[in-house]
């Protein structure tokens, strides 16, 4: 069965036809060719497919494309504004929070969402906030440092 859906992705409106059984992840990657969002485990464990749906992080491998009808999606391609990287993108680069890079888009989205709801997370809160994002390279230490630094940058930005 096919469905006509209208939704926005990274601020741009799309009117497309999706198959009932295609996940949001498939729709983003295969129909919109937004391949920043990755397919890791397909079962909501690894977080590589994390996107924002109406501002909240979800595993796009466990959302049907048809469910995105009427909703607003932000993928890693939409985190930067006017060519400026989001704080967490900057600090992940500067502090080396990425190695192979496969988990990075999901981590960026999850960390961005964490900093939106909790602008000054403790290390424990960062660890818990990223428990749904697996990284097999870095050992997480630099990722955690990047989130902490992004929180500091964000707060400095707000103060200025």
């Amino acid at each position, binding site marked *: 069965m096919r469905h006509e859906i209208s939704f926005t992705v990274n601020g741009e409106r799309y009117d497309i036809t999706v198959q009932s059984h295609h996940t949001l992840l498939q729709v983003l990657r295969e129909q919109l060719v937004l391949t920043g969002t990755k397919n890791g485990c397909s079962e909501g464990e690894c977080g590589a497919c994390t996107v924002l749906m109406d501002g909240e992080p979800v*595993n796009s491998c466990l959302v*049907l494309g*048809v469910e995105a009808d009427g909703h607003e999606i932000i993928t890693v391609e939409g985190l930067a504004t006017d060519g400026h990287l989001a704080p967490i993108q900057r600090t992940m680069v500067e502090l080396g929070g990425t190695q192979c890079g496969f988990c990075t888009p999901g981590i960026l989205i999850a960390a961005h969402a964490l900093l939106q709801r909790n602008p000054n997370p403790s290390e424990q809160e960062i*660890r818990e*906030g990223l*428990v749904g994002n697996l990284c097999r390279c870095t050992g997480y230490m630099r990722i955690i440092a990047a989130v902490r630094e992004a929180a500091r940058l964000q707060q400095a930005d707000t103060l200025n």
Partner: protein
Amino acid sequence: MQPFDYVKPKTLEEASALLLQHNGQARPFAGCTDLLIRIERGFLHPDVVVDIKALPGMREVAVQPDGHLRIGAAATMNQVALHPAVLERWPLLAEGCASVASYQLRNRATVGGNLCNASPAADSAPALLCYEAVAHIFGPAGQRSVPLEQFFLGPGKTVLERGELLTAITVPPPAPGAVGHFLKLGRTAVGDISVVSVAVLGWPDLGAPSGTSWHIALGAVAPTPIRAAEAERLLGQDASPAGVEAASRAAAAAARPIDDIRASAAYRTDMVRVLTRRGVERVLAEMRAS
């Protein structure tokens, strides 16, 4: 993934009719954090998934005029875990829901789905059993309500008949002064499925010999989440350190766990004793402090 159709009914009658029509091959669909995985792995082959999220009241969490909490069956784990009234009056439930998987998964996983999948390890269940929650069901014969304790029949099995769907859970307000804790043992500190879980709810009760009454529920150690009635009774008699130890042993005796990839039955049984003791001690300390 094997193709299936998707429908999003607007009324309960329509949803129930759809579930009846497809000869068992229509599946209710809420957060789809379990369903989609089972389809993907080939365990389920539905013709159609019936998205229940647009049905009236399905996504709402609210305190009713009678003081009972009503959780729409498709309300998410995060909606419940972060709800101010739940945090204030039913914190044990907030702890249970917050312990499920990751934040992003809890944005999709629903309490109704957690209960209807009827995993012995369902982390919303022990708290809801302690609070004596009631499951509300809609089906071809109309509405019916079942105490949650009677809702589960076995792993993956509930009292839901073909064409029926869970619409809401209601949770009565706990007794005045009630304190609860949910203790969950996973392979990792955060985010894993329960190897063993214990929910403990205690409250001051001048009518009880120990001055306290208790509800204790166990997860992942029996074919369904269960209450530990004998442990509850013993604590009502005696909440001294010796009484707590006896009750913890009674809770372990109530467990009927299996060996599986996560833990042995013997380990689970002993951890029921340990977690029950820790939970009861924490509740007692907090009751004394308040």
